[in-house]
């Protein structure tokens, strides 16, 4: 597979001397769905904005389908569609006009048939003559997607496509993303949620503090990240972990009143059942059991420390 986007040694320092991107190297394969995963302020929007021409890079190069985004900006931007994170729409425009406007901005001749198809796919056809201010938030987001698709882009950027979107729309958004991919569009999306990255993407890049700390096939990453924590609250305090439980790699916390066990949910034999059995036979009494998925922050910490 060839690379449709190639970013090398990209740095962005904002006017206030804040370094938002640090030496980013990233290649996106043609036809894949790539998820940029990272906490607030990681630099996801900045990264997308530099590729799309909204933010000037401080150094480094970006190529889209082989075209440099600065020196050959027309060819590069022509094939990109962008759905930004913020909902920004011209309140007084109708759905039809605003989507047609986007198409003309990209220099494409009018094609009402195609716009009709886009609006129908996004369930916006019956709203085509409505002014944008009369639409709900979720509908506005779909209008922004329609605008991004209006010029038949090869690459689509979705900056937090599911923020503020209900469960049903979220599902249909996921479906839409997969349908687009089938039609050959490369998709780059950002998200805070591991589940979303898992559901939607083929590959994940984790970004934090302006650095890409890892890129990995989604399935591989899920194995690494599928860790859960089992917390066992005991009735009495323990001096130390009993001999027969040492093989479980437990740790003592909570003033020696609790045991923590990490296990992998993806694994067939994760040891939880055995551990409970051995607890019983060692004569320890438990008061309560808790399991917890590692949070995104913990995962980041873990990844950074690796």
């Amino acid at each position, binding site marked *: 597979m060839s690379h449709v986007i190639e970013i090398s040694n990209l740095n962005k320092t*904002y*006017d206030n001397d804040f370094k938002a991107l640090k030496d980013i190297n990233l290649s996106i394969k043609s036809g894949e769905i790539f998820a940029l995963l990272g906490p607030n302020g990681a630099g996801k929007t900045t990264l997308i*904005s530099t590729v*799309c*021409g*909204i*933010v*000037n890079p401080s150094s480094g190069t970006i190529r889209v389908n082989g075209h440099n985004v600065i020196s050959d*900006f*027309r*060819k590069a*931007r*022509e094939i*990109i569609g*962008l759905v*930004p994170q*913020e909902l*920004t*729409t*011209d309140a*007084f425009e109708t759905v039809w*006009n605003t989507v047609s*406007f*986007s198409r*003309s*901005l*990209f*220099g*494409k*001749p009018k094609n009402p048939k195609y716009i009709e198809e886009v609006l129908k796919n996004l369930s916006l056809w019956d709203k085509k003559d409505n002014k944008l201010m009369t639409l709900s938030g979720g509908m506005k987001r779909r209008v922004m997607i329609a*605008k991004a698709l209006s010029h038949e882009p090869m690459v689509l950027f979705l900056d937090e496509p599911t923020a503020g979107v209900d469960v049903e729309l979220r599902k249909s958004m996921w479906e839409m993303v997969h349908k687009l991919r089938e039609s050959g569009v490369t998709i780059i999306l950002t998200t805070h949620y591991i589940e979303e990255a898992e559901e939607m993407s083929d590959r994940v890049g984790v970004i934090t503090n302006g650095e890409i700390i890892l890129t990995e096939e989604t399935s591989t990453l899920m194995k690494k990240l599928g860790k859960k924590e089992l917390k066992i609250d005991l009735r009495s305090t323990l001096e130390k972990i009993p001999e027969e439980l040492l093989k479980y790699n437990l740790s003592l916390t909570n003033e020696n009143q609790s045991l923590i066990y990490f296990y992998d949910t993806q694994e067939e034999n994760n040891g939880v059942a055995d551990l409970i059995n051995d607890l019983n036979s060692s004569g320890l009494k438990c008061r309560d059991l808790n399991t917890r998925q590692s949070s995104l922050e913990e995962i980041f910490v873990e990844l950074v420390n690796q």
Partner: protein
Amino acid sequence: MINFRAILAIYNFEMARTFRTLGQSIASPVISTALYFVVFGSAIGSRIEDIDGISYGSFIVPGLIMLTVLTQSISNASFGIYFPRFTGTIYEILSAPISFVEILLGYVGAASTKALMVGIIILITSALFVDIQILHPFWMILFLFLTSFTFSLFGFIIGIWADGFEKLQLIPLLIVTPLAFLGGSFYSIKMLPPLWQKISFFNPVVYLISGFRWSFYGKADINVGISLMAISLILFLCITAVAVIFKTGYKLKA
């Protein structure tokens, strides 16, 4: 390669905005012109003697048109580019395959078209109140075009520079309106005491109005060639400023 469709799309978008607010865009200049004529033309004007052999009511027409075209150009263009920056919809224009010059042509083109339209409406309204002569129609149109384009460019620069609605109003309010009022719309520079005559020559609007009035009645405070040079100089300064903005990507892109 030029993205004509994009220029046209921006132009049409801006013009559509004008027509959506047709009442505001057209009624307000018509009403204010009519008021000027009631106050200055009929009430006060009847007691003011002719200037250069022109009745006072007719004398103020070119100045009124210039005043309106000038302020309309600035406000249309500055608002046109500032508003999408303010709402965030500018993202779309920045990420489209359009150059800065093309963006500028779309916005400035629409702003000057609208200003020209308003100028013509005022001309027609004035003709209902007083006698109007246009001795040099070609020059009249040239002056109108140059003024609307130049000051739309100026407005565009303000719209890019401003980072709040106050700043958007600041320059028009503090600089342009006083200069325009003191630019000889309502009097001939020759009527001023000598010192103020001298000071007036530093006011660029004086040259515009003088030249424009010449195209109507063939009488001018300043040689028409000098007027033309003055407006060309302002145009040149605006283009230079735009070129600097273009080079630095100033405030359109982070």
